Every structure is written in C-alpha cells, then in structure tokens.
C-alpha cells in the first residue's frame, strides 16, 4: 500500500516586499517510483499553485534542479521519495546562488560569470577549413576530454563548497574542472602561463581548501579533487 509523505519546502518571494520566508508543509500519497519532480508537480498542480522550482529535462541531464534535500545538495529530479524512510523530506533552495523564488535559484548568472572568468572556450589562432579533414585526435585523448566535458553546470559542487560561500568570486570546482578540460584539448593553444593568468589566485586554484565536498556531491561523479590537485601542481610551477 502506498504511504503518505510529507514535503516541507521553503517559500519566499524576494521580489515581493510583503513576502517573508516561511516553511510550507504538504502531505500527499506516494506513488510507485515517485521522484521529487513528480511529487512537486503534483503539489504545484493540486495543492499549491504558487510553489516555484526549476525542472527542465527531469532526467538528470540538464542540471537545472539542484536543491538542498534533507541537508544535502542533490538533483531533485533524480531523487526518489522512497529513499526517505520516515517519509519526511525538507527542501531548501541552493545556497550561494541568488534566490529567485521558493526553490528556484539563479544559477545562470553565476555560471555565465564563471565561464567568462575562465575563458571557457577554445582559444586558437588556426583557421579551420570546414570542407577539409578534421584535425586528427587520439581516441583516448577525446575520451579524456569527454569525461571532463560531462559537467552540466548544476552547481552542486559550488553549493557544497565552503570557499564558494565565503568568496563571491571563487570559480569553484566547476570552473577549475573547466580549465583542466581545455588544457588537455589539442585544439586549444593556451599554455600553463595563460591559464595562470586566469586562475592563478585565491579566487581560482589557490582558493580551494581541498575539503572534498564538491566531489562527494557531483552527480556526474567527476574526479574533481584529482583534477584540481593536478592543476594546482601545474600552476605552482608557472
């Protein structure tokens, strides 16, 4: 038989002067295979039309739905309600990112700044003739780049990082991982000194205190600590 679950969510609309942060409590019957996406959709369409959250792909692919779920930063669409034995789930918006409303936060602006900060693109003086053969790449190298390219800018590493909470401009594991990604890409002409220019400071590679929370919470299981350590070794030598 299905049980009843309780979802407690922070409600607050900063753009409305009369709004005060409060917790709303919702009770609903659990269905087989229910995810927090299904549960919140049910709440939004039947109990509280005013609840805001960010779901796009609802498949754990796009990185939109990060929340603090019973104290841990996680993707809500990939979280099953059945995991919580007492049937009580408390939801808070991700910290560090500006709150839009309730569980919806502005990850977009933060990620945009990070992308610009670390020049998150291929830098090359070569002009590609697109009707001719592509540059050959060792299969293993392509796979290694792909591994790091899997980051979906969900921001869970940022939300779980002590440095990021204290330092507004810290690029986070997501930013440092991105730099490593481009540094191993044969299409990119930047050298270590160029990357040092971008991240060789306390808002970059030297801000990380190696507390490992980022890697613990990364839904893509990216080897963030190893990669950050690798980058730090290189940057110290510059």
């Amino acid at each position: 038989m299905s049980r009843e679950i309780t979802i407690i969510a922070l409600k607050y609309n900063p753009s409305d002067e009369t709004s005060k942060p409060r917790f709303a409590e919702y009770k609903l019957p659990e269905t087989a295979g229910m995810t927090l996406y299904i549960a919140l959709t049910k709440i939004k369409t039947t109990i509280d039309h005013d609840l805001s959250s960010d779901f796009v792909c609802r498949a754990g692919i796009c990185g939109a739905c990060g929340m603090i779920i019973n104290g841990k930063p996680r993707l809500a669409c990939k979280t099953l309600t059945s995991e919580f034995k007492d049937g009580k789930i408390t939801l808070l918006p991700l910290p560090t990112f500006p709150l839009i409303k309730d569980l919806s936060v502005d990850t977009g602006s933060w990620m945009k700044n990070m992308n610009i900060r670390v020049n998150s693109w291929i830098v090359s003086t070569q002009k590609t003739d697109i009707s001719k053969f592509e540059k050959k790449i060792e299969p293993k190298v392509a796979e290694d780049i792909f591994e790091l390219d899997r980051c979906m800018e969900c921001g869970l590493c940022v939300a779980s990082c002590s440095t990021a909470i204290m330092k507004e401009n810290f690029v986070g594991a997501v930013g440092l991982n991105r730099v490593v990604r481009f540094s191993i890409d044969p299409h990119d002409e930047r050298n270590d000194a160029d990357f040092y220019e971008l991240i060789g400071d306390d808002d970059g590679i030297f801000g990380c205190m190696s507390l490992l929370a980022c890697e613990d919470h990364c839904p893509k299981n990216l080897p963030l600590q190893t990669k950050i350590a690798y980058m730090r070794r290189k940057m110290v030598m510059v």
Partner: protein
Amino acid sequence: MKIKYTDSLIIGGGLAGLRTAIATSAKGLSTIVISLVPVKRSHSSAAQGGMQSSLGNCIMGEGDNEDVHFADTVKGSDWGCDQEVVRMFVQTAPKAIRELASWGVPWNRIKKGDREVVINTKKTTITEKEEAHGLINARDFGGTKKWRTCYTADATGHTMLYAVTNEAMRLGVQIEDKKEAISLITKDGQCFGAIVRDLKKGGLTAYVAKGTLIATGGYGRIYKQSTNATICKGTGHAIVLNAGGYMGNMEAIQFHPTPIVPSGILLTEGCRGDGGVLRDKDGYRFMPDYEPEKKDLASRDVVSRRMLEHIKKGKGVMSPYGEHLWLDISILGRKHIEKNLRDVQDISKTFNGIDPADKDKKGWMPVLPMQHYSMGGIRVTPKGESVNIKGLFSCGESACWDMHGFNRLGGNSVSETVVAGMIVGDYFGDFCKKNNINIDTKMVEDELNKQDDYLNNLLKLDGDENIYDIKNEMRIIMQNFVGIFRNGKDLKIAVEKLKTLLQKSKNIKIKNKCRLLNPELEEAYKVPMMLKVALCVAKGARERTESRGAHHREDFLKRDDKNWLNRTISYWKNEDDLEPTLKYEKLDIMKMEMPPAFRGYGKKGNSIENPISQKRQNEVDKITKEHKGDRYELQEKLMPYELQEIYKEKNQRLGDENE
C-alpha cells in the same frame, strides 16, 4: 516604457538559436539571445544518440556521401520533405561537424585495427583503416544505409550545446536567460521584435530588432506523455500564430516506442538492437505475432503502433500511471548490460528502482510509446524566412524548413539545428544588415500595453474554470485522440473538445493575484497558447485523409500521392477564432530529384500512386543515363539548388581519389 534595441533578436538558446547567433555576430551585428532557462539547459542537451553527417570515415560508413544521406532522408520523410532543403542540409552537415570539432566537441574518434561490434545480434569483428585513425567515428542508427551517426558516448547533445554556447560567449553574444517571449511586435505583415517577460522579476520589456528569429524547439508537451523537457510547450509557435504567421505540417508528430514509464525518459533503441524484447502483461513476447519478419526491430512508427494495438486488446500492464508494456533486456545477461547498456541501467535503477540485469520479471522495465519529436513548425522558405511575415525567421525543431516531412530520422535533428543555424543564420544576418527599420514607437507601445492589459485582465477573471484542469484535459485529449493511431471520428471529437477548452480558458479564476512572479498566472497565459498549437495538430490530422510517415489514419491506410502530396498550412485568421484555418501547399513532383516510390520498408503497395511520379522517374533515369561527368554535376542537372558558396564546397573524404 521599457524598450531594448538590437540588430538581431533570437528567441531560443538551444543549438539552433545559438548557432544562428554565431552567424549574425560574425557579421558584426549586435545580437541578443533570450531563453526560458540558462541556455546550456535547453532541451538540445538531452539528445543522446548522435548527429548524422556523411563523413564516411569509419569502415562501416565507407562509401557514404551526400547522395546516400539525401536518399535516406527523403525516404524517411515519406516524400513529405522539401528535397532542395534536404540537399542544402546534407551538403553542409559534414562541414557542421568539422566546425564543431574545432570548437571542442570531443567526438568519439576511430581507433585503427580490429574491434568487436554487434550486428544483427551477432558478434562481428570489423577492422578500421590505418589512415582513418583519429578521425571522427560514427555508429549505426535506424533508417540509414551507412553508419553515419557521430557521437560523444550517450551525451551528444550536451557536448554540442556546450561547445556552441562557449563559442557564442567567446564572440560576445548577449545571452539573456530566464526571459520569455510572449508576443511578437508586428505591423503590416512585418515583424519588429517581441514583447519579453522577465522570469526572474516578472516585468515586461519590448525588444525591438531589425530581424527576429525563432528557435524555440518542439511542442511535445501538449501531449500527456512525451520524452520532451518540461519547457517544450510550443509558445514560440503560438506567438507566431497570434501574429498571423503560417505553420506547416503541424500534424506530423513522431512517437518513440520505448520511453520508460512514468517519467518518459528515453531508453535507447540499442536495447532492442542488441536483442532485447517487448512483453505484455502475461510476459508474452507479442511482436513476432504482428511483424513475423522484423519482430521487435521493425521501424519506430511500426513498433509504436503494434504496442498500442496490443494494449487495446487488453494486454497492457496496469499501473498507477496507466497501462504500459515491458522491455526485457535481462535475457542479454548482466555482463552485456553492464558493459554495453550502462546508461539504460542507470536510468532504470535511478528512476524506477529496477535493475534491468536482474533475472526475469524483476528486471523488466515499463515502457510505452510517447511523443518524441515535432516535424511540423513555423513554415519558412529555404532561406529560413517566414512565408508570410517579413523580418521573421525560424530554424531548428521549431521550424518547418522542411527536411523531415512526415518522419525524421534519428540523428538528423541535432544535425539540422546546427546546419540550419549556419545557413539560415547567414541569410538572417544579411537580412538584418540590409533592413534599416524606422521604429514607430507608438506601435511598440501599443503591443506592450496590449500584453500588459492582457496579463492584468487574466488576474481579474472571475470564472469557475481551473487552468490546471484545462491543461490536463488538453494533454489527455491529444494523447487519446491525436496519438499514434488516428481516425476521423476521434479527430473530430478532439477538435471540438479542444475548441471548448480554448473557450473555457477565457473563463478561469486565478487564486494568487500577484502580477510579477506567479506560476499560476504563467499557466493562465501559456495554456491557451498550447491549445492553439494543439488545435493546429488535431485539425491538420483530421483533414489529412491518408497515412504518411508518422501520421497514421486507421480509416485511410494508404499514402495518397494523388491527393495528399502537399504540406498543410495552418494559421489563425482572426484573433478570436476558436480554430485555425487550413490551406495546402503543393509539392511539385516534376522538380524532385527523387520522385515518390516505395520506401524500402513498411508495407509494399501501400500507396495511391500519382502518375506524374513515373513520368518524372523516367525523366530522371534519362538524364542519369545520358550524363557524362561526376555525381556533383549530375545532381546539379537533376535538381539545382541555392546555397552559400562556402557551404557548397566539396566535402573531403577518404577515398576521394576513387570517385
């Protein structure tokens, strides 16, 4: 009044919109891209399988070229496509993929020597050539003669979208996320921009532009069950409809056989490719009864149809989310699954708590055919401009350009987005450059006020309808009456019911009166938009009394080239109409490079032939027979088409010297 000016306004930041933005900013035009969500979360990121492009690098792609890709695409479309557009597309696709490689997409690369693959459920060894080592690899996909689908594991859309966004950022394209276009600014058949709602604060701003391009993706969410992201609601189509713009072939909707229930997340075709089977509530493998030859591996539309037919016979499995069938890959064994179908396992474990490698029934995954892709869309010329609104362009899934006709091939869609971004983006840029507009601020102000009043009035409505119920009902109607199997009776009911819902949506009541961030208010203006799109689909389907590609009529089982070799145009004649007006655009067989014939799969002899097809075929045969010269010259003789010179260039391939 808040007004923002730009040369090019691009609505939608998926692959199509962002690649267009790169084209316009390369021309020195100021460019703004707006998107409902941070652009890297656009639905393009969900594409898994890959991108079609006839590089012909890998051994199983040997001999591939534009001609083969062209033929596959035209057959796939069931001859509903614009063949000139398909030519533009296949010629540019190899360039698109090479460009993407230079922007950092880590395409899977070929390793020389032997490797083991599974072909027709049998383990086979193939040997990659020495000179291909390090070039872009490709995999097999449905409906293609060669292995042509290039990929980055199962996250192709993700890596493509990141590379294109990064390049757009490098060029300084202004990307504004959490912004929604809610109407177009038009006057005397010309578009001057859009009214945009800020989804972070709730306010309205007029974006005035020399040219406006819509790249808002598909409209799958009008269906109860869809593989599409929650944001694929067709609002981009609706704002064009509201401005009087034409849609093309809106009834052409693709359904995929094996999304998982209830989440609708896609499970790749590879499950069945490797030997997995479908089962019913009794655990019975039913596909061989329907399709003795191809069984579970018949084409997407055929399998989807058979599955529903079987459920209608009472063989579906009941669940809290409705009926479904099972997909069984447990028979492949744990070792195979954990190596070759890792992601299927991950999805199934996470979302359904089922490990598909578990023996027997325990490992079966619940599946049901669901809406997957929108072939129809904003009807545009080969240059991407709306056929009836000047200064308005569209590309990507939102457009009916029209290279997919009534069925698109897997891997051809992400490919279309970037290719169209290149080609249409260039034409669009030229238009913006030439078009010096005189802005009539009164007109801008009028449209802004109109939308402002509209939202205020929605809040004031004091009816007894609930917008969530209306939406839910619409999605169920689409699911049940405008689905995979269609017939005149159901479609008639659907159109009438949808009309009633559209009427009802004017008689709602919104509880929360907040004008700024109010999810209920958002539903209140979006649902009528979705209803208009749904009505175009339903009415188009009702009138089309034939079966073509994914459009299947139980009461008209044949493809009818005599009467229906045309494109449905739907539009809103008067603002207050409750249904679209339809008309038809004829396809000219005498201009086709490949006149209508048998697709090579599906039932043979299942079409009503047009005598002109044979006449044109004879002509084509004659030209081909008498032709002296290479395949490029022959193509030019058969069906000349216009394309930018840089994109028309010959594509270099291994073995070119043998041609």
